[in-house]
């Protein structure tokens, strides 16, 4: 069990980000804006294709459910990763690293805290988008029930370890590499077969994609929305991969911090 001191320090870092977010309407709006716009846009796109293809209402519902579910869940992954990297960049922009990392805050506690922050940011973005889909398309992602939670947490996990790895790169390369925080997850999307089945990919991309938990989550999502079947195997595979990558992500970020302490870049970060 985590000692009281650790919890207090994790809460302190979370509180720091809560203060920033809770008083900044533009930041909150930005977090909610993109998931909602994407959901509305992709909903109409799927309606358009289903209607032009002469699909009946049942097929249209399946197409909508599959595509909108994928859009929302992919956004969870993306927002979690970006939220985590931004939590680090916030400290760089505020030139606060020199105070934070000479306090008793352990790197592991800081990682836990920014994972929590990124989860909150992802939820703030995803919940309005999910609710908006109900009046727009009569689609409720919550109808998936328990499997939704499993899809959700697997993608959150993937967002976390990606965020840890990207943050490690930012620690190493400096804030000049900030665009990595925005680009990296998008680069993985084609491999993860978010909006299509993996068999449309070239063989080498399918093989690479198997290494990403998201591919298994989205296969699981399609099995549920298209065939009404929940296949636990997909979730276990995704979970196992996530565990391995989380350990690697935390170790790499820990190494990056130590390297920054060796080269003296920790106190200069942001300058």
């Amino acid at each position, binding site marked *: 069990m985590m000692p009281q001191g650790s919890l207090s320090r994790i809460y302190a870092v979370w509180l720091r980000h809560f203060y920033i977010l809770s008083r900044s309407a533009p930041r909150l709006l930005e977090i909610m804006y993109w998931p909602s716009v994407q959901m509305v846009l992709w909903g109409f796109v799927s309606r358009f294709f289903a209607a032009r293809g002469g699909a009946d209402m049942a097929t249209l519902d399946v197409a909508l459910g599959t595509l909108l579910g994928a859009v929302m869940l992919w956004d969870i992954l993306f927002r979690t990763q970006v939220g985590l990297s931004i939590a680090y960049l916030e400290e760089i922009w*505020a030139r606060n690293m*020199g105070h934070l990392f000479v306090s008793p805050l352990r790197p592991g506690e800081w990682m836990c805290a920014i994972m929590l922050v990124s989860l909150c940011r992802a939820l703030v973005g995803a919940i309005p988008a999910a609710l908006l889909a109900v009046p727009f398309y009569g689609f409720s992602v919550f109808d998936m029930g328990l499997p939704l939670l499993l899809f959700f947490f697997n993608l959150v996990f993937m967002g976390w370890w990606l965020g840890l790895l990207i943050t490690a790169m930012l620690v190493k390369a400096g804030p000049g590499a900030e665009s990595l925080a925005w680009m990296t997850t998008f680069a993985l999307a084609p491999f993860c077969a978010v909006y299509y089945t993996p068999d449309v990919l070239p063989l080498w991309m399918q093989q690479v994609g198997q290494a990403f938990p998201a591919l298994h989550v989205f296969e699981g999502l399609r099995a549920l929305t298209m065939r009404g079947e929940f296949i636990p195997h997909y979730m276990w595979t995704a979970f196992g991969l996530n565990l391995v990558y989380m350990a690697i992500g935390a170790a790499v970020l820990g190494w990056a911090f130590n390297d920054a302490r060796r080269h003296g870049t920790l*106190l200069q970060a942001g300058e």
Partner: protein
Amino acid sequence: MSSASAPAVSAPAISVRALVKEYKSVRAVDGITFDVMPGGVTALLGGNGAGKTTTIAMLLGALLPTSGSVHMLGHDMARDRFRALQRMNFSSPYVDLPKKLTVRENLRIYGRLYGVPALEKRIAQLAEELDLGEFIDRGLGKLSAGQQTRASLAKSLVNAPELLLLDEPTASLDPDTADRIRAYLQDYCKRTGMTILLASHNMKEVERLCDNVLMMKRGRIVDRGNPAELVARYGRKDMEEVFLDVARGTSAAAPAPHHPDPESPEGEAA
């Protein structure tokens, strides 16, 4: 407040042995050894590039030494730095606190990071002592330099540290604000017995606050002693002139005839 008068049996608040920091071909800190005894104010002086900031970063555990050891409040910073960091604090005008947060929010966050009990009471106490009341609920970025310095000082005292590292605490402040800060620090040390290691370019500040001085040049400690001794030994009228002598290497005076070595039985460097 003089560390020289501290009992010989008490353990040093800071103990540094053969500390070296190399960056590729540059030796920023070159084998320095010193002790700072509890309860005094010690200045770390030197021109730009002398190695003061690098030394302070190593004392804080933010920078790993190439070799040598640092013990803060008895804790080895290589193995046990978080227990030491819990009992110390740091302030520098070159390291900011989050400017979008209010002073109170910053103090709440750092108070929790340091595990301060009865935090709101401690914040109220610091607000009163440092006269933060007028602006404690305003964003840090909207405050004047003097107010920001007081807020930063409050953060550095929030955990009632036993050891405080200050990097140019009155840089860019007007004489009145700077004087108030010095008076407060002097009074606070007297009341609490806190130890301060202070890097400063302001020699008046050093004369007023410090009972010991470590003079650095090109990564080495080239002289040490209390300000009055140094002024007398260099045959100068104040620390400003001593500083110039050391920085420019123009001194006719020899360095301390007996360099106290902390390793030796009588050694109590600073």
